[in-house]
C-alpha cells in the first residue's frame, strides 16, 4: 500500500531535496587538468615537427642534433627543474599541516631553483645563437628552439604564478579560492616535469645518438 502512495504524483519525491553541492575544488582542478592535457597536445605537435625536422636534409648543411646538444648540461637542468617541482610539492605538504611559513618557504625555494633552470637554459641557447645556430639557420634549429622555448615559457609562467600565490597566501590565508589555485598550480608544476623528461629524453639524449 505504501508503495502505491510513493507512485502518487502529488506525493512523489523525484529528487533528494538536499542534493550534494558540487565540489568546487574538485570541479576546478579537473577543469584545469583538462586544459593542461590540451596544452600537452600542442607539445605533442611540436614533438612531431621536431621528429620530422631532425633530419640532415632539414639541417641545411648547418648543425645537427649531435652538434648542438649537450646532454650533461641538460642533466643539470633536469636536476634544477625536478628540485623546483619537489620544493613546490613539499610546500603543499606544509599546506596540509596549515603551516603558512612552510608553504611560503617552499615557494621561495621553488622559485629560486626554477630561476636557476631558466638562467642555465638561457645561457645554453644564447651560446648556441652566438655560434650562429639561430632559429632561422635551418628547419631543424627552428623546431628545436620552438619546442624547448615553449617549455621554458611555461616555467616563466609557473614562477610568476607562484609569486602571485605567495602574495595571496600571505594576505588572504588558506581560503577555498586560494586552496584550489594552489592545487591547480601543483598540477601545472608537476606537468612541466612530465614534459621536461620528454624533452630531456627525446631531444637531448637521442641527439647524441645517430638514429632517426
Amino acid at each position, binding site marked *: 500500500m505504501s508503495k502505491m502512495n510513493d507512485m502518487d504524483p502529488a506525493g512523489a519525491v523525484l529528487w533528494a531535496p538536499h542534493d550534494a553541492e558540487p565540489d568546487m575544488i574538485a570541479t576546478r582542478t579537473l577543469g584545469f587538468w583538462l586544459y593542461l592535457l590540451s596544452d600537452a597536445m600542442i607539445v605533442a605537435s611540436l614533438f612531431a615537427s621536431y*621528429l620530422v625536422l631532425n633530419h640532415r636534409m632539414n639541417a641545411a648543411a648547418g648543425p645537427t642534433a649531435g652538434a648542438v646538444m649537450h646532454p650533461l648540461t641538460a642533466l643539470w637542468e*633536469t636536476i634544477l627543474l625536478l628540485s623546483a617541482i619537489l620544493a613546490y610539492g613539499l610546500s603543499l605538504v606544509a599546506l596540509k599541516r596549515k603551516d603558512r611559513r612552510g608553504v611560503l618557504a617552499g615557494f621561495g625555494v621553488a622559485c629560486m631553483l626554477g630561476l636557476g633552470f631558466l638562467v642555465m637554459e638561457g645561457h645554453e641557447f644564447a651560446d648556441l645563437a652566438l655560434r650562429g645556430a639561430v632559429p632561422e639557420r635551418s628547419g631543424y634549429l627552428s623546431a628545436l628552439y620552438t619546442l624547448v622555448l615553449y617549455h621554458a615559457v611555461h616555467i616563466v609562467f609557473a614562477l610568476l604564478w607562484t609569486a602571485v600565490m605567495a602574495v595571496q597566501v600571505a594576505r588572504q590565508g588558506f581560503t577555498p579560492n586560494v586552496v584550489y589555485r594552489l592545487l591547480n598550480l601543483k598540477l601545472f608544476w608537476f606537468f612541466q616535469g612530465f614534459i621536461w623528461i620528454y624533452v630531456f629524453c627525446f631531444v637531448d639524449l637521442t641527439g647524441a645518438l645517430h638514429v632517426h
Partner: protein
Amino acid sequence: MSTECQDPLQHPQVQMAHGGQYIAAYVFSLILSALPLFLVQEHGYSDTHLLFVVIAAAAAMTIIQGYFWLRLDVSRTQAWFTASFILFIPLVVLTIGLTAWMFATLYTRTMIPTLMHAPGFTH
C-alpha cells in the same frame, strides 16, 4: 560531498599530499635521467639499443611521476584525472606516430638520394 562550508584544507586533494612519495618520485626520476645519460655518453652499446633504453626510461618516469606526483590512481577523488589522462595517450601516440610515419615514407620517396649522401650533410 560539500566542501564549501568546510575547511578547504580537509579536501581530499589537499590531504593526499605526501612528502615521502614526492621525494621517492624525485629520486627515481633523477636516477632514471642519469642512467640513460651515462649509457649514451659511454657509447658502449649500439645506437638502436640505446634508443630503446631512452624510451624505457621515459616510460618509467611517466609512470613514476604520474603515480607519485600527479596521483593518477583509481581512487574516488582521482579517477577522472586518470581516465582523462589514459584517453589522452592515444591522441599523443596518433599525433606523433602518424606524422613520423607519413614523413618517413615521404622522405624516402621524394628526397634526392645523391644530395642526402653529399659530404655537407653528415649527420
